[in-house]
């Protein structure tokens, strides 16, 4: 009873209340919405602690493995350093925390994502080798768009206008169709969760 029914009751009550409040244009409803949002952010923020515990446990375990110990020590030391400078000396502009973010995290993140340019080029080659109308359309559109956003594309007379049209009409049509489907999917999944039909999130 406690294991499955209480979570289902919590989901039902909060789900129904939050759905209904949208349709009640009253200050009480608006303040309930604001309180629920702060509750949501507060509870969700505490979930990050679980992720951190999992991170520390995982790397602490790896410290015992000779082949991984150095790298896990680096990860743990970097994590602890960020916590110490963040909680100890603040996070404002010019602090060590901000400098670590700008000069360590941002370059590492940007470079890691920029690596994908090389791998996407090889993936594109493999994708474009597939023959057929669909693959040809994908290839042509991708090439036009890629040319359209580069400087060289601006020197070819029809490319900028064609890129603009492709983005504003057929691309928008496909995105809109997909997004309407996404919206319907979100509503049906939310309803299934609130009504207790979808229970996978309960686990076991």
């Amino acid at each position, binding site marked *: 009873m406690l294991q499955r029914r209480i979570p289902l009751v919590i989901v039902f009550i909060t789900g129904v209340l939050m759905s209904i409040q949208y349709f009640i244009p009253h200050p009480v409803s608006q303040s309930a919405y604001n309180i629920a949002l702060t509750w*949501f952010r507060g*509870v969700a923020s505490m979930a990050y602690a679980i992720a951190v515990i999992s991170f520390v446990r995982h790397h602490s375990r790896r410290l015992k493995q000779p082949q991984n110990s150095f790298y896990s020590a*680096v990860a743990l030391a970097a994590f602890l350093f960020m916590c110490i400078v963040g909680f100890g000396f603040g996070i404002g502009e010019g602090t060590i925390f901000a400098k670590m973010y700008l000069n360590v995290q941002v370059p*590492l993140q940007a470079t890691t994502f920029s*690596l994908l340019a090389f791998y996407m080029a090889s993936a594109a080659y493999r994708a474009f080798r597939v023959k057929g109308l669909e693959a040809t359309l994908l290839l*042509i*559109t991708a090439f036009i768009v890629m040319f359209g956003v580069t400087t060289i594309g601006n020197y070819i007379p029809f490319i900028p206008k064609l890129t603009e049209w492709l983005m504003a009409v057929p691309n928008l*049509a496909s995105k809109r169709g997909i997004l309407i489907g996404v919206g319907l999917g*979100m509503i049906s999944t939310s309803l299934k969760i609130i009504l207790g039909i979808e229970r996978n*999130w309960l686990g076991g």
Partner: protein
Amino acid sequence: MHISTDPWVWVAAILTLAIFTFLYKDNPLFKFAEHLFVGVATGYGLVIIYFNAFKPNLYQPLFVEHNLLYIIPFFFGILYFSAAIPKFSYMMRWPIALLLGIGSGLSIPLSFQTYIVEHTKSTILRFPYPNAALFINALILFIGVLTVLIYFYFSYPHKGAIGTISRIGIIFIMIGFGASFGYTVMARFSLLVGRIQFLLGQWLGIHTVM
């Protein structure tokens, strides 16, 4: 050529090069940079979430303003840690249930409004059109949205007229995927250009962007 004397620029440059070494193969330098990134990002996330989410939404109202209403979310948040006690680990589902309930409840009207109503309103043909080009574009958009939706309708076999319509839908979807792919590739290339500009400009002082 004016090589930077700022130690932070050197740190960023060395880490950038360490990540680029992966293009040759997985190596200790890359692994070091990768683990450093994971550690720094996790620490950054924790500190930012504490200052931007936990403190203003829970700590401040409960422990500074003494608003007892916030005991409820704090209690739910504490229940996350019940995972550590096997006998009470099932209680970890309660805060998840609260988040799911609020999230699902909010998403029903909001999804309906933003994904369905707004997109349908923008797709519907509205006569008269100022010129033929605008009308043709609006018609293509309308046909595109309709055919894509029919392509994703799986409750009826895609044969006959429905099959033909869904085939037109695939054409629109492929154009959309091609455009997304082209944009994503160019976004990654612009990141790459950004890193190379940093190495050549800020670090080595060879090339500066106007």
